């Protein structure tokens, strides 16, 4: 198992040994031998139906394991009394709740269940804890509204607050971001990360978003085909091929440096050459890919964001090493390809000493009588290309290129 040095000294919270989870006779995931440390943010990734939920339910003792053992704080999970377990472990599940006429406050207060007396009367400390939990998820203002009236984002916050009110060591969340928009998704994740950092709560979560997982988790777990495919820090685990294999991506690619997934350029339409750089090519690639065009791009430096996006999209790239001036051979190669194509796009790349030669590509194309579309203004085009700028086709905005190309 790989683990970064910073977390090595931390104590173990959960541990599984030869764990096999599933329902009845059906094993869903087997051979889970892992450790989870205090305050870690662990994220399970995998395609739908791979068994993330089954693993989480087993870790939360909502499902008994088929084989093997789970340890919480060094004790067998099955040895905990319901109350002891509820004091150390809380869950947020995916099922849609309709608890009736229960206010958000009352809902969160149910998290105090393992602490209150026989009739469930809240002590002053309980009320304080509930209010603190509501405050920590920014839900104080909705405390008095009925749970059923809340939006998806607000509900999710209240669910998390309820789990927090249980004062657990471990919170297990099953796809908590699934119905949320971007704003709430990010808000929820940063709340959870704060729990990890400030309250030293261990968060075990299943997510759909590889991007989000890469950016937020300390440990990612890839679950595929009834086994744990990988377990470790996202930087080590989330390699391009691993992600592609995890989700059986043949129509999309994942770029680790950017942490984004791009749909593979599988168009069989006309091939278009994009002269790009400095990120100006990215919107053009995506547009052309959507429009079903095949893409050739160059000359792009390997440290350019355009390079990563073009690679994820599956464009043909003529590239140059980072920060180097473009070699003559690369330029010739580009010109050779360009010769066979009719449509060239000048993305309006910034020009500097290392990529000055890309201007020659544009000039050559214009000179050869090809249709060259540019995103530059007439003024800058004249400054860069001189009188040949007259022959360029000027497009305002990326979308208009597509319209012109389709004419």
């Amino acid at each position, binding site marked *: 198992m790989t683990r970064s040095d910073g977390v090595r000294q931390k104590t173990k919270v959960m541990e599984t040994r030869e764990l096999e989870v599933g329902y009845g006779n059906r094993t869903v995931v087997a051979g889970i031998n892992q450790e989870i440390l205090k305050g870690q943010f662990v994220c399970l990734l995998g395609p739908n139906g791979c068994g993330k939920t089954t693993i989480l339910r087993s870790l939360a003792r909502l499902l008994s394991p088929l084989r093997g053992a789970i340890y919480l704080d060094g004790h067998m999970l099955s040895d905990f009394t*319901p109350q002891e377990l509820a004091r150390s*472990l809380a869950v947020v*599940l995916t099922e849609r*709740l309709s*608890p009736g006429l229960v206010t958000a406050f009352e809902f969160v207060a149910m998290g105090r269940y393992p602490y209150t007396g026989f*009739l469930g009367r809240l002590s002053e400390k309980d*009320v304080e804890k509930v209010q603190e939990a509501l*405050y920590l998820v920014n839900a104080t203002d909705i405390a008095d509204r009925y749970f*059923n009236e809340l939006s998806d984002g607000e509900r999710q916050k209240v669910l998390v607050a309820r789990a927090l009110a249980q004062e657990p060591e471990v919170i297990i969340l099953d796809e908590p971001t699934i119905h949320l928009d971007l704003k709430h998704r990010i808000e929820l994740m940063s709340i959870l990360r704060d729990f990890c950092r400030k309250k030293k709560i261990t968060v075990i979560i299943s997510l759909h978003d590889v991007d989000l997982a890469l950016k937020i988790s300390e440990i990612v777990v890839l679950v595929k085909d009834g086994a744990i495919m990988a377990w470790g820090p996202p930087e080590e685990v989330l390699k391009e091929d691993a992600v592609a294999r995890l989700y059986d991506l043949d129509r999309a690619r994942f770029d680790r440096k950017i942490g984004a997934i791009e749909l593979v350029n599988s168009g069989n339409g006309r091939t278009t050459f994009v002269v790009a750089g400095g990120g100006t090519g990215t919107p053009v690639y995506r547009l052309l890919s959507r429009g079903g065009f095949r893409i050739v791009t160059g000359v792009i430096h390997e440290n350019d964001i355009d390079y990563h996006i073009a690679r994820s999209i599956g464009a043909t790239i003529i590239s140059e090493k980072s920060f180097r001036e473009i070699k003559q051979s690369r330029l010739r190669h580009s010109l050779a390809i360009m010769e066979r194509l009719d449509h060239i796009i000048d993305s309006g790349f910034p020009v500097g000493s290392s990529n000055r030669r890309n201007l020659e590509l544009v000039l050559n194309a214009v000179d050869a009588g090809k249709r060259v579309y540019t995103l530059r203004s007439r003024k800058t085009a004249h400054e860069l290309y001189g009188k040949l700028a007259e022959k360029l086709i000027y497009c305002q905005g990326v979308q208009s290129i597509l319209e012109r190309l389709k004419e």
Partner: protein
Amino acid sequence: MSTLAGGNETYRGLGRLLIVKAKRYQGLFLLLLMMLIILFVLNIGIGSVNIPFMETCRIISQHLTGSVPGGIIWKIRMPRVLSTLFCGGYLAVAGLLLQVFFRNPIVGPYVLGISSGATLMVALVMLAGLSIGILGIHPFFLSVAAFSGALAVMVVILVVASRVKNIITLLIIGLMMGYVCHAITSILIAFAEKEKVKGFVLWQMGSFSGFTWKEFYLVLLLGVPLLIGAYLMSKPLNAFLLGEDYAKSMGVNIKAFRFLIVIFSSALAGLVTAFAGPVAFIGLAVPHMARLTFGASDNKLLIPGVVLLGAIVTSLCDLVARTMFSPVELPVSAITSFFGAPIVIGLLLKRRVAI
């Protein structure tokens, strides 16, 4: 909590809000209690035999049982009215327990086949000649039959509940049991003599008219501990509002809890059915009325709430059943359904929040 300085203002706001709510609930309970007392007095005072109000007061306060009106009030009306109150409360609590347990607002004691089981046993006694040799069937014997029927269904449900995890499955099994019981009952009716059928049909309509003191004490002694038990379960009941998984994760012992709910609800419903016959609607509707009245689903509040409201609604329905076409007494189930159903629909439509 120095880190939460910004939230302090709101905290205090919340505290105030809780106090305001508590006061509102106290007011509501007082109101319900007053309504109950008024209905009690009306039920005692009104009947096919006209007894002046002052006379009634005198008879009650001085415990006069000798005269004819005294006999009517103390021997007939009093046990009946008191039994009606308690039976209404029991049915409502049984309904509430089942609604929380099944997380389904349209269930009542009928659903688990509890009432149907009781009806079937009574049908066996009244129609199928199990009473051979007993010319007049003693009403108490009928009660025993009804209770054993409810109990039998309950035992079957418990056995199934220990194996079936899914609550919806359990619900459907309850429904199916009800259908089977109904089917057997109707076959028995088809083969029975006309005279007997009439008696059975009357029983099946439900009525509180047969209660004597002896029966009232029995209902009281058997039922009140169940009510107290249900109230003591209000904490896990509340947790159950979030569903079985959350309840489990908060420390509810699900197995024991399922067992207790099934026992309590069927015992309460069976007890009422045994003595009054199947009374429709109370178990289904009163929990709704209570939730909407209190604007809450907190069972610590709702259990006493439904006891009071169940008693009020049942007494009112019994009063209407007795007096509307006096001296003809209508079946109480007809009244409960006829007036109750539209009220529930109206209350539900007026609300934005789903129950």
